[in-house]
């Protein structure tokens, strides 16, 4: 059976530098318009099975949101393939994407910016479904379904005629979830869906998402920077750094036996109210280098306390270390260099 989502060697680069006037340079007696390119995603591959939750974690600028938005085809990928149900959508136009949109929907981060302030809630929720349905007869059904969805995500259906600003952050996120559910997708891409919410509301939304997953057999691609949240919701976790996937593993294995130094540093840096947990202290110095100017060899070596000569010259690739874990680190080959 084909995977719900199969991503192979996904690449995304963005041009920056503004308009032609901003980029204009006069070099070697010729007028040039050089543009600088940011490598936001550098060859990421993974798959999500039906009903599975894969989380991508990493710090800001690691490319996790770009991966999500490229898969949702808000952006056109600059390389690699994206298969939804076996169909490669990486080159699809708006028209060809329409049937795919019924299989894949998205939940956004910002409960305020992700809803059009001038649309009524019922119109917001019905929008993806209306694009899929043709003809007037279906209107009635769409309206009924919209109300049912609002009720399902825990909103008062009498408020369907209201505007987004009349709702709290948590309620708006529920509206966004109802919108994503309207076309009965098999995959929902959730880009930091709870990071803008207060912790008590965050728990409500996470619970709702888990319930919906069981009820509708949803698969999630869940983007987050919060390891505790990811541990709660994900079956499998991928860790990203500077546009590379540096480690993937089943949830429990990643938390109990992280291999990549960056994963270990993330786990040790996360503050926790449990002081009992014995912690491996991997402390990172410095900050993430610019994606405009990637380091040679391993992308993490400039901050890695364990980096050695080989890391400078050779870029490590993901390799299997058993138990469903894959790590992109030279320490896998040379474990004697690791601190144990």
């Amino acid at each position: 059976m084909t995977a719900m989502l199969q991503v192979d060697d996904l690449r995304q680069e963005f041009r920056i530098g503004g308009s032609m006037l901003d980029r204009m340079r006069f070099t070697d007696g010729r007028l040039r318009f050089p543009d600088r390119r940011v490598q936001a995603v550098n060859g990421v591959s993974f798959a999500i099975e039906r009903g599975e939750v894969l989380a991508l974690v990493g710090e800001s600028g690691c490319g996790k949101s770009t991966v999500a938005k490229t898969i949702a085809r808000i952006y056109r990928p600059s390389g690699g393939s994206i298969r939804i149900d076996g169909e490669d959508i990486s080159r699809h136009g708006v028209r060809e994407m329409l049937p795919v949109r019924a299989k894949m929907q998205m939940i956004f981060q910002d409960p305020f910016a992700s809803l059009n302030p001038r649309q009524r809630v019922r119109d917001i929720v019905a929008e993806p479904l209306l694009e899929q349905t043709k003809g007037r007869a279906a209107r009635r059904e769409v309206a009924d379904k919209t109300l049912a969805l609002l009720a399902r995500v825990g909103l008062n259906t009498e408020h369907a005629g209201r505007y987004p600003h009349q709702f709290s952050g948590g309620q708006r996120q529920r509206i966004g979830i109802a919108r994503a559910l309207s076309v009965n997708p098999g995959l929902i891409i959730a880009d930091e869906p709870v990071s803008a919410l207060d912790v008590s509301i965050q728990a409500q939304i996470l619970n709702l998402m888990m319930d919906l997953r069981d009820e509708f057999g949803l698969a999630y691609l869940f983007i987050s920077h919060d390891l505790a949240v990811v541990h709660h919701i994900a079956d499998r976790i991928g860790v990203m750094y500077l546009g590379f996937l540096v480690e993937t593993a089943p949830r429990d294995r990643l938390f109990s036996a992280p291999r990549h130094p960056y994963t270990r540093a993330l786990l040790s840096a996360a503050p926790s109210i449990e002081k009992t947990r014995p912690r491996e202290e991997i402390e990172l110095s410095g900050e993430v280098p610019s994606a405009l100017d990637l380091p040679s060899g391993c992308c993490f070596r400039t901050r890695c306390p364990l980096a050695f000569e080989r890391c400078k010259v050779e870029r490590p690739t993901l390799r299997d270390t058993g138990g469903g874990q894959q790590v992109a680190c030279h320490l896998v080959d040379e474990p004697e260099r690791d601190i144990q």
Partner: protein
Amino acid sequence: MSATFLSSEFFHNYKRNLSAIAGSAILLAFTVIVLAGPLFVAQNPYDVAQLDLLDSYKPPVWLEGGDARFLLGTDGQGRGVLAGILYGTRVSVMIGVSAMVMSCLVGTTLGLLAGFYGGRLDAAIMRIADIQLSFPSMLIALFLMSAFGTGIDKVLIALTAVGWVVYARTVRGSTLSEVQKEYVQAARVAGLRDGKIIRRHVLPNVLTPLIVVATVQVGSFILIEASLSFLGVGVPITEPSLGLLIKNGFDVLFSGLWWTSVFPGLFIMALVFGINLFGDFLRDELNPRLK
């Protein structure tokens, strides 16, 4: 609906803002003039049959030699100055408002396209706008009018050619920031095509700042049209606007027959003043940054 408006913050601030009240009172008065002006005067100044050369250059009614039929005096053809103003205001306001609507349509469309698609289209539109802005708008209007010849339609085209820029720039700016927002991305994920995204999602969210621009622009268009007509390249003599009335009176201004051009001038001043007062209030109220 009306109850919620009366208890809204907007109305509350309006009530406490004297210049806003004065501005809207002036605007209301001019609305009445535009809609019902001819009812206030017996004479139709453009019906030659109703003119009598014997009535020419009568002073306003409170001066010696004044005639009760002509409150603000008459011009050389025996046309009542007040009657001329009431009819002329219609022409002025009609031109100001129509040119504003046309500029808004053209400018908003170009601004939306530039902001939404970016790249070369954006660069092209905005460079034209920059060039346009580097010439005084009067100069451009004058040039176009002398190229096209006079006529209300020509005035409208000239004013639109001058006025679209401000909308294009405002709309492009707001569009750039709206397009970044996740609801536009959500519309893409919902499967909407560009045209629908622009119409349904971007457009309604970039309109608010235009209200202020549009209000103030009506005032400046009325002034530009008056200047064009004063210079003789504006509206035709058969449909005189306030500007043309000033021009007609200007020839005899220094012969002591001041009323023929001073009264239309005062009316233009009051009209533009009212528009600007109200525009300032709207700007303060609708600008989220000042809140």
